[in-house]
């Protein structure tokens, strides 16, 4: 013990920070995918012509599916802000791109949207990109650990 705090060896501490960053990345992806899905479901099942009136959009926010989507996207915003403090922007962007793939899958399964071979090829590219970026250090500018 030193100064009332346990001494943790550096590799263990680094692994813990890395795990927390990856768990938060997972949370960011889940809230984004489910939020976008709820929003899309709500928008496709509304019968009002939106036009460009801000009031129509504000009224729409309080319909159940859009409200659920908005809540999830607020959680996504807050968790992503925190993640941007823990990791590089150039790390967070590709790592969270799996959300695009999952959204395309949900679009096919629940909305019957057509997913062509180009989209599946695009999915493969995104997954390869995520693996490449996942092999690099999450934070290259700020060495302060996420406690």
């Amino acid at each position: 013990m030193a100064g009332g705090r346990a001494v943790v060896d550096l590799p263990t501490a680094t692994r813990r920070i890395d795990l927390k960053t990856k768990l938060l990345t997972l949370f960011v992806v889940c809230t984004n995918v489910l939020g976008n899905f709820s929003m899309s479901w709500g928008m496709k099942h509304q019968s009002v012509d939106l036009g460009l009136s801000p009031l129509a959009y504000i009224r729409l926010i309080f319909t159940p599916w859009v409200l659920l989507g908005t809540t999830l996207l607020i959680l996504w915003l807050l968790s992503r802000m925190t993640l941007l403090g823990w990791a590089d922007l150039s790390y967070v962007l590709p790592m969270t791109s799996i959300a695009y793939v999952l959204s395309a899958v949900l679009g096919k399964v629940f909305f019957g949207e057509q997913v062509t071979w180009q989209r599946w090829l695009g999915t493969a590219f995104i997954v390869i990109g995520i693996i490449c970026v996942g092999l690099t250090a999450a934070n290259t500018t700020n060495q302060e650990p996420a406690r």
Partner: protein
Amino acid sequence: MKWLMVAIIVGSTSLADLLQSFEMKRHVVAAEDLRPGRLTAMLRGLAKRGPLVLAVFFMAISFFAFMKLLSVADLSFAVPVTAASVALETVLACLVLHEKVTALRWAGALCVACGVTLLAM
């Protein structure tokens, strides 16, 4: 209308992300602050930071443009096409935020950008 919304989303998202990354690195939020009991205090703290308020403003613009886009386009088009910002933001992260973008990370970002373009086709 569809492509105008895409342009608004990409532009405002890039600005919002740069501002958030810059400000959140100046005052890092600890994992303990994410607990439900501390969430209000965390939110209050975030609301006092100018660059974050500006970032939220740009995100709000992006959000309403995204709502409009969803009403005129498929989800499987709307979500991937707005990821055009990935390549742009990686360049800006290197130039503006001085992040060390290694060859492997550039390759990954390029793969993601190509993938997103294919998804949007």
